[in-house]
């Protein structure tokens, strides 16, 4: 009886070491499925990851979840010690930041919808900037006249801003409560929530040769 318990604990420790090694080695977050491949078949990967997260909870490096993927990141409270301010010499242009938050909170969002919120045309450069930063992506095309491209955020967006998922977006509940996530007035009973999952019913996939141009651009 005693031995069995010890053996079990040993197996768990070994699995934690393996996960530690793999997660430390990667700069990018890794999916639980990919991590599970390194463990014995049938090992409870979710449990192990939770245990590892607990172990590192108070440490200088924490195990965090980003959009269903896992990664080690330095602890947030050490930011003032580690901050590398010189990297951010310029602030993000306001137009780009506004566009980013509109896409984040209203996704999937078309350019027309972004422009509706901002009250001004969006320069193509703004979308491009955000795409280049790897924070937004073209999700698909909405099944409405003109078939406009729908935009959404990426896993890199979650990673960059330290969000486990879109539901962690700051002030999301407040905005939802105030009816500000709706495109219409008066707010409908059901408030749409930002969604970065698979394509929705009213979205078509982007074809491989689709450059993502909107026909009715302005």
């Amino acid at each position, binding site marked *: 009886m005693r031995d069995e318990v010890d053996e079990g604990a040993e197996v768990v420790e070994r699995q934690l070491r393996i996960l530690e090694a793999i997660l*430390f080695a990667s700069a990018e977050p890794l999916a639980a499925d990919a991590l599970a491949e390194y463990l014995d078949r049938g090992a409870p990967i979710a449990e192990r990851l939770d245990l590892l997260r607990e172990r590192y909870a108070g440490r200088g490096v924490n195990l965090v979840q980003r959009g269903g993927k896992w990664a080690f990141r330095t602890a947030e409270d050490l930011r003032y010690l580690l901050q590398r301010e010189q*990297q951010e010499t310029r602030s993000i242009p306001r137009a780009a*930041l506004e566009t980013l*938050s509109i896409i984040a*909170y209203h996704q999937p969002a078309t350019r027309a919808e972004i422009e509706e919120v901002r009250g001004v045309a969006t320069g193509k450069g703004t979308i491009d900037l955000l795409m280049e930063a790897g924070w937004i992506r073209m999700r698909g095309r909405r099944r409405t006249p003109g078939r406009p491209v729908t935009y959404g955020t990426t896993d890199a967006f979650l990673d960059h801003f330290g969000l486990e998922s879109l539901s962690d977006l700051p002030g999301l509940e407040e905005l939802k409560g*105030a009816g500000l996530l709706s495109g219409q007035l008066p707010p409908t009973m059901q408030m749409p929530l930002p969604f970065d999952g698979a394509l929705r019913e009213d979205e078509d996939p982007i074809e491989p040769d689709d450059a993502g141009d909107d026909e009715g651009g302005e």
Partner: protein
Amino acid sequence: MTTTQTDWLDQAAEPAEDVMYVDVGGYEGPLDLLLDLARRQKVDLAAISVLSLAEQYLGFIESIRERRIEVAADYLVMAAWLAYLKSRLMVPQAAADDEPTGEMLAAMLQFRLKRLAAMRQAGARLMSRARLGRDVFARGMPEPLEVTRLSRWEASLYDLLKAYSTQRERGVVTQYAPVERNVWSLQEARELLQRLIGDSADWVPMDAYLSQYLATAPEPATIRASSFASSLELVRLGEIDLRQTETFGPLFMRRRRDRRDA
């Protein structure tokens, strides 16, 4: 560490199409201008007076135009809408009026201002989070997965033996002299038959005519085949007759008579 995320910040140039909106006092479009005017009026957007806001906006645009500054179309569209809003707010509504009431229009404007303000605030809150590559860091020295490609070659014993045999055969090719086949051409056979049959009107077996050749040739089959084929041709031309009395029996041939008779 986060070059991809920060490089683009250095691309200072705003796209050209944005520049014209900045012309109006540095505002990002009419809604931005309205928001700024509203902020000056009151902190709480819910409590602002839409009517006075509309008046301020219209006054602002007017003052710009007086200074002969080009105003972008967006601002003028908003100005027209606000003028309409103002009129709806000031003139009491008729009961049968289909158009939205001034209050509805005002609420719509307030909603849009609140929503834009909320998005701005959300953006600011996002930016103040502990951000990767600035406040929070990934592993500085990631240890990449090294993938070693191992080729597993596939070959069967048959492939191996075939390869060997082919090479050994290829090796002896150099000593191989093609056997010269003594083939009778149809032309040759025909001329020979005509000569041999001559004017003979008697049935003579073909082999008898050919006996001397069949005895010496290494491949009698070609002689028989060519001669037989030629004999058929001669029959067709009406020069000889052919006869065979039984299956596999000897083939008799003679000069055709009626031809000469004719």
